[in-house]
């Protein structure tokens, strides 16, 4: 624990020895889908006759062909009382399509070539309907996505702490900000994928899915296919990134592929292509926000009143988790005074919206941090100082905001030292020296700005994760946890934890994730919960095994368990290292045997030693084997936090935006592996930079996604990601045995807020819409110059 151990996954993954979904199922039939070309339409007719002519077509399915529960709408995964109008799609569209890319017909064929050729021969007739695109249009409510959902409102939720109206009326100063933030998407390198093997003799299904929750997929597919849970197992192979989109389940394909496999008695596989990922997976981020804030002369918050309108796309399978997180996590490290937040989650005829790394927090952080900058500007105060004056102080922890968080539990911060974090950040970026740097740059004709953003991130939400630890007689230690891994380094950090807890060499510990055959009870990988939940679960399981090992060894060595210690795989008497017994021998002793198959097994057979004839070989309260299982289930989320600052240069003539420096101070509690934490932060910042400067889903009025390819949807390359300077603060969480708080999403959350803050600082006019491109910044300059009675003369090109 705490060491920068090299990731053990990397040699395998970096040398091309990963085993991803599409590497499986050679010889399986392959599926392809006819997807809607229209954003909103009624299906009039589907003609599949031509497709059947093709050699190699095995099956063609429309909604009409689906039986029983497969034909019913997909589940609403996370119901909420405020979600009065939840709507989900069908596995294959029934009568109506609600976004471009919705699956209408499934073809199963000899290979993907034939399957796609067959799709091209299928004709679907549509009656098109007016499309609802964009939050503003949805809010107008003059066009409806679902006829029976008035105003396109899936959910309306309001929370209030204190008396906002009174506090606002009494506030010496008030400001209102209208803000917008655009859609982006997870864009993992590997899209989704499903491979199903139906064993007709056994009546059982093995499903491989590129998912963030194998237990979730298992339960969902068993329910849809009306199979006993015991007859379904779900395995995640290597997964090439998830970032949120793969926590949604079951995707239509996760139901249809195994259903088709059972129907046809053949292995069936589907691998999502990039275009499908753009139009038939999920997006996130799109919101319009209106913030009204009341504050005193010193910039202290007295009242905060937030309304926002959240674009949830065509359906709500993942409920209103994203806007709930925005509404609650918006508060960051600050005391808001009286707080009221109300949101409307709105349907549009676009790809559905589910969590993407940060999951509603980037939007909330953006709203709060834009507000902080506006207050500083209004009062003529230093921006860091305004933030500092509103911080919750360390001696005020735990801090209960009086709101309900995304897990239905109180929004109560467990730990954090925000003044210390800010001090570290100011030192790291050179906050107090920036004015001199700006003046120097200005003399060179260059325009630079400094931005800042702070956030608190609820991580490690429940309900639980489990760990199973088993010591083999060879000394090998097998660890299983049910949540899945998408490249985070779980194999490394969970092995570090178990090696420490159990006292065995790191190299002896082998970790399995996301395989329902090894751990049937699990939730999934999301909300920066892997280290918090499974880290603590495997630690608890290792402690169970350790206690058992000590008990068995104590009997053998005729000492008290309290006098024993385990190190490097050997149990020895404290202060007498010569009196010892290897852990692998303890494993032999733990499992009394009748049959010998190797030397160590022979040592455990019934004639191998003396025994007490009056006691059974396995005691009444005991079990054979040196193994144990435990679960970690917290009462509430942990709360990590961080603060970022960036120095940005904007070209005075082209409006090109360059990030010169990017600084991160991060507190995720105890770090299991600081190198992996830094890697998570780096990756998160890279995605944040994408969201701030490049990524947006551009829909036209008809609901066509105009940039559904990597040629037009821009993401930052290594060349656009700045060098990231990091510093850490470790305030352990008091909530869990290891003191961990979670790090997965941290890097992403404040980046749009920070870059907006820096550009605003460089340009001298407010930035109220993100992401921002050079063309948009140039346009903003023109608009501000036109409305400025004393415009700054056009600057000469310094280059």
């Amino acid at each position: 624990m705490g060491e920068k151990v090299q990731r053990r996954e990397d040699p395998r993954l970096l040398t091309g020895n990963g085993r991803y979904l599409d590497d499986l199922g050679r010889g399986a039939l392959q599926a392809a889908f006819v997807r809607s070309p229209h954003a909103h339409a009624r299906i009039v007719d589907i003609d599949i006759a031509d497709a059947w002519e093709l050699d190699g077509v095995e099956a063609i399915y429309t909604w009409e062909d689906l039986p029983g529960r497969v034909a019913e709408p997909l589940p609403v995964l996370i119901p909420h009382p405020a979600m009065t109008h939840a709507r989900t799609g069908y596995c294959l569209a029934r009568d109506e399509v609600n976004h471009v890319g919705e699956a209408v017909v499934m073809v199963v064929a000899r290979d993907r070539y034939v399957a796609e050729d067959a799709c091209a021969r299928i004709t679907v007739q549509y009656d098109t309907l007016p499309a609802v695109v964009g939050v503003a249009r949805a809010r107008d409510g003059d066009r409806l996505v679902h006829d029976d959902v008035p105003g396109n409102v899936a959910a309306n939720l309001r929370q209030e702490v204190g008396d906002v109206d009174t506090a606002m009326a009494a506030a010496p100063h008030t400001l209102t900000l209208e803000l917008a933030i655009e859609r982006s998407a997870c864009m993992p390198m590997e899209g989704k994928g499903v491979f199903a093997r139906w064993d007709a003799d056994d009546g059982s299904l093995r499903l491989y899915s590129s998912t963030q929750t194998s237990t979730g997929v298992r339960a969902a597919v068993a329910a849809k296919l009306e199979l006993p849970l015991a007859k379904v197992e779900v395995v995640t192979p290597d997964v090439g990134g998830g970032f949120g989109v793969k926590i949604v389940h079951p995707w239509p394909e996760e139901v249809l592929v195994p259903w088709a496999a059972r129907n046809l008695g053949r292995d069936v596989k589907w691998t999502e292509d990039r275009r499908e990922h753009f139009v038939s997976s999920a997006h996130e981020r799109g919101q319009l926000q209106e913030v009204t804030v009341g504050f005193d002369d010193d910039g202290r918050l007295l009242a905060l009143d937030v309304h926002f309108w959240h674009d949830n796309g065509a359906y709500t399978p993942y409920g209103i988790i994203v806007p709930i997180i925005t509404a609650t996590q918006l508060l960051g490290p600050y005391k808001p005074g009286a707080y009221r937040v109300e949101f409307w989650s709105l349907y549009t005829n676009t790809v559905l919206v589910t969590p993407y790394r940060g999951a509603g927090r980037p939007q909330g952080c953006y709203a709060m941090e834009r507000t902080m900058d506006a207050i500083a500007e209004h009062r003529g105060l230093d921006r860091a100082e305004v933030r500092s004056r509103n911080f919750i102080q360390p001696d005020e922890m735990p801090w209960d905001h009086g709101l309900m968080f995304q897990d239905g539990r109180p929004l109560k911060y467990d730990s954090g030292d925000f003044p210390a974090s800010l001090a570290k950040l100011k030192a790291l970026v050179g906050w107090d020296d920036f004015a001199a740097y700006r003046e120097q740059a200005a003399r060179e004709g260059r325009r630079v700005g400094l931005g800042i953003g702070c956030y608190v991130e609820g991580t490690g939400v429940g309900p639980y994760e489990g760990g199973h630890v088993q010591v083999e007689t060879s000394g090998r230690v097998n660890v299983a946890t049910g949540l899945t891994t998408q490249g985070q380094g779980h194999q490394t950090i969970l092995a570090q934890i178990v090696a420490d807890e159990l006292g065995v060499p790191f190299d002896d510990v082998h970790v399995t994730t996301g395989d329902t055959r090894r751990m049937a009870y699990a939730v999934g990988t999301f909300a920066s919960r892997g280290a918090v939940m499974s880290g603590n679960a495997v630690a608890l399981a290792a402690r169970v095994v350790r206690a058992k090992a000590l008990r068995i060894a104590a009997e053998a060595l005729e000492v008290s368990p309290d006098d024993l210690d385990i190190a490097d795989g050997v149990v020895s008497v404290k202060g007498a290292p010569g009196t010892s017994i290897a852990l692998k021998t303890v494993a032999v002793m733990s499992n009394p045997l009748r049959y010998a198959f190797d030397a160590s097994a022979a040592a455990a057979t019934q004639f191998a030693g003396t025994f007490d004839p009056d006691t059974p070989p396995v005691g009444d309260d005991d079990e054979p084997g040196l193994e144990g299982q435990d679960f970690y289930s917290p009462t509430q989320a942990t709360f990590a936090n961080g603060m970022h600052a960036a120095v940005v240069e904007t070209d005075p003539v082209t409006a090109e935006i360059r990030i010169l420096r990017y600084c991160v101070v991060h507190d995720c509690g105890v770090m299991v592996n600081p190198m992996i934490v830094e890697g998570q932060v780096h990756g998160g910042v890279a995605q944040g930079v994408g969201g701030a400067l490049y990524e947006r889903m551009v829909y036209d009025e008809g609901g066509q996604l105009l940039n559904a390819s990597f040629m037009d949807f821009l993401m930052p390359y290594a060349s656009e990601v700045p060098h990231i300077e990091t510093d850490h603060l470790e305030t352990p969480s008091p909530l869990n045995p290891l003191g961990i708080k979670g790090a997965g999403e941290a890097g992403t959350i404040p980046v749009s807020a920070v870059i907006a803050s820096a550009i605003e600082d460089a340009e001298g006019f407010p930035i109220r819409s993100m992401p921002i491109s050079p063309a948009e910044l140039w346009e903003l300059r023109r608009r501000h110059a036109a409305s400025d009675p004393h415009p700054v003369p056009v600057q000469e090109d310094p280059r």
Partner: protein
Amino acid sequence: MIPTSFDYVAPTSVDEALSVLAEAGDDAKVLAGGQSLLPILRMRLNAPEKVVDLGRIEALRGVRDGGDHIAIGAMTPYCDIVDDALVREHALLLAKAVETVADPQIRHRGTVGGALVHADPAGDVGAPVLALEATLVVVGPGGERTVAASEFFQDLFETSVGDGELLTEIRIPKHTGWGASYEKFVRVSHQWSIVAVAATVRLDGGSIAEARIGLTNMGSTPLRATAVEQALVGKGASDLAEACSAAAEGTNPPSDLNGDADYRRHLAGVLARRAVQKAMEG
């Protein structure tokens, strides 16, 4: 994202390629590196019955000294251009432009001739070829003909290479000793040009004796800014802004997700001055 099925032919000589094309008529597509064609096929925007791969015609590859010009085989990949001694000595502008194309993988696959015939106005080869007043060699059933670069680009994705014809060689008059720069405006490094300006100049003392300026993505074809070229004659390094500000005059640039026409016109003027200034530096 799988193409419809097609026949694949890989001739080893230009004559063989021409006869395959003649036989296939409208149903054939030429594969000259494939960095644009393959995505088009995969997205089923085009479904030819036959794909004729020129990749095995050795004669179409390489750069040679043609006396008063250098001759570049149409199938020479970008990566071979960037460091070629003849190109750098006599057509530096082309090397500067080509080294900005996409990423190393694409520069190893994509070819100069393929890019010219594909004629995407956001591509980086057209503007320097135009500015360097190249002559393009086209062969067809009727034999060989040459086309001036100024006549080559007809419209969006359209050149004077007819059905059944092949571009075989690009002849660039030697611009020995000319300084050059390709100023490309992109948001991420591997992106197609939002706008780019290709500039090459010959100096006399400290001032410009001759200038050639090409514009990328300022219209449906690569363009040449002849008015700017003329206005630059006699100008020194500190005296470029006014001449260059006219770079966008008479152009009709596109508006898209990366910027509208106004912004592109503005960029063209800025980039032209930067390009000329850098070109003057070498």
